[in-house]
């Protein structure tokens, strides 16, 4: 087979690949595009898809006025921050213990922690609710965040990261008089910065979007996060039309979406890094 003959079919298949990839990409963002269209047009004309229908921001105004979005956003921000800060502290300490300390029962404990990757907090809703109620944390940010703070995934990830730090670095710091915690803070944490970044992004995206547990724990607008607020807003009983629901939905996803567009590369890298085990 000559070089000339073999090149043609390849170019054909490349063109087909490109068209297929674009089509699938279009189909994949179509739901967002349709919602954007509907949110910018008067309710009666939302589904006409005629370019002649007038543009309007009325739906956004109506959606904004219909629910305490500012409170919901603040609650989501508090929830995400509380959870992340707790996770970073607890998982750092636990990951350090599993990576660098020898003590009886360590292996068994580690298996127990790993088991939590499967025994999801979502599945234990009945008894976790009872526990949060016993701790008098119902309808609070702490009640929403605490079950996720001792994250098995975080402990596992940081243990791996700490294990890959060369022991010589630790010994050098020890010679200079660093304590156990000093070594953790001066050597291990800085060396694992990319893993921290990856874990933080995954955690924020997860808890920004979490729904079932916050739904169960909250019962007032003062603590509800965005997802729960949006689910109440979209309920058929509330009688809002599809244009306003679309506007509200886009308002809720906008912050993460904009952050994603700006940091797309870092975001995907973070997921990549966190996913590699």
């Amino acid at each position: 087979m000559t070089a000339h003959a073999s090149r043609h079919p390849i170019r054909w298949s490349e063109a087909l690949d490109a068209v297929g990839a674009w089509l699938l990409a279009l189909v994949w963002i179509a739901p967002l595009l349709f919602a954007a269209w509907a949110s910018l047009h008067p309710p009666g004309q939302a589904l006409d898809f005629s370019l002649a229908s007038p543009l309007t921001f009325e739906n956004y105004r109506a959606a904004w006025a219909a629910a305490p979005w500012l409170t919901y956003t603040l609650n989501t921000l508090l929830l995400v921050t509380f959870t992340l800060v707790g996770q970073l502290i607890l998982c750092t300490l636990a990951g350090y213990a599993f990576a660098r300390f020898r003590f009886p029962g360590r292996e068994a404990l580690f298996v127990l922690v790993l088991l939590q990757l499967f025994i999801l907090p979502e599945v234990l809703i009945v008894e976790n609710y009872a526990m949060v109620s016993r701790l008098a944390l119902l309808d609070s940010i702490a009640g929403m965040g605490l079950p996720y703070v001792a994250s098995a995934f975080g402990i596992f990830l940081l243990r791996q990261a700490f294990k890959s730090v060369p022991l010589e670095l630790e010994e050098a710091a020890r010679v200079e008089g660093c304590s156990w915690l000093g070594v953790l803070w001066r050597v291990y944490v800085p060396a694992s910065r990319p893993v921290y970044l990856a874990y933080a992004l995954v955690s924020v995206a997860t808890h920004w979007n979490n729904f079932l547990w916050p739904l169960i724990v909250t019962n007032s607008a003062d603590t509800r996060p965005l997802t729960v607020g949006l689910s109440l807003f979209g309920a058929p009983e509330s009688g809002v039309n599809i244009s306003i629901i679309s506007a509200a939905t886009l308002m809720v996803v906008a912050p993460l979406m904009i952050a994603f567009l700006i940091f797309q590369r870092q975001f995907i890298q973070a997921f990549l890094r966190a996913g590699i085990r």
Partner: protein
Amino acid sequence: MPETGAPTRVLDPIARQQRRRHALYGWMLLAPALTLLTLFAFLPTAATFWASLHSRGTARRPSVFNGVENYLDLIHDPTFWTVVGNNLLYAGVTIPLSIALALVMALWADARLPLRGFVRGAYFTPTILPMIAAANLWLFFYTPGLGVIDSFTGLFGLPPVNWLGQPQTALWAIIVVTVWKEAGFFMIFYLAALQTIPPDLKEAAQVEGAGRLTYLRRVLLPLLMPTTAFIFINALINSVKLIDHLFILTKGGPDNATKLVLYWIWEMAFSYFDPAHATALTVLVLLVLGAVAVFQFTIVEKRIHYR
């Protein structure tokens, strides 16, 4: 794990003391995480099991120990078998479909295409949306008569369909949303794995005259096996966990056609206030997840040997 040399040699007191201090530090570092794990994982698991062996308490009749009666009630409830069947179909379709799509997406997102950044971004976008928002977006597709799908099929003179309102189509409509949501996430893992495969392999295959499909089947798929196993486990867990969209789209209806196990647990516990049966169902789910965990640990074990 005990140190291997320890029994043969007598430790001097200083070393022994240092060792004890080491263990103490280890436990102290673990204490906060262990406390929370105990409160929100270990104790609730034990409490779930215990509660599942007790009857539903009312104001007049307090709950009493009743053995496996809650489990028997479940087994004799036709809804139980509907829900289990739904969840099996949900898992059986979403898992292979989203894995296959994720692989196709990764191959395209890895190829040298014009607009590659847009393509990657588009595939990944559903991953960062809350499931509730995704459900709202899809509601717009499924609305009978007015929705995007019916507007489109209407062009060809097809009658409107109530996709979410009839038992034959509702679960499939839910499945489409789930696949849409998770395929882009799984793509990322394939993308990462593809980038570790040396390009010479492809060239060698081309020199040998292997077609694309042969290359995919004989070279890529075997190399991607560990990634596929990892994604499979994640997809399996998701088929239990991903139920948020039910709250918006169907609420488990019509006629239980879209009711999945976790949704039913929530409904029993928080709408019907029947923790007895909710916990019995939870124990069954925990058993399944435990089996998945054992399966995963053996696969991980294998992977380590492989390396």
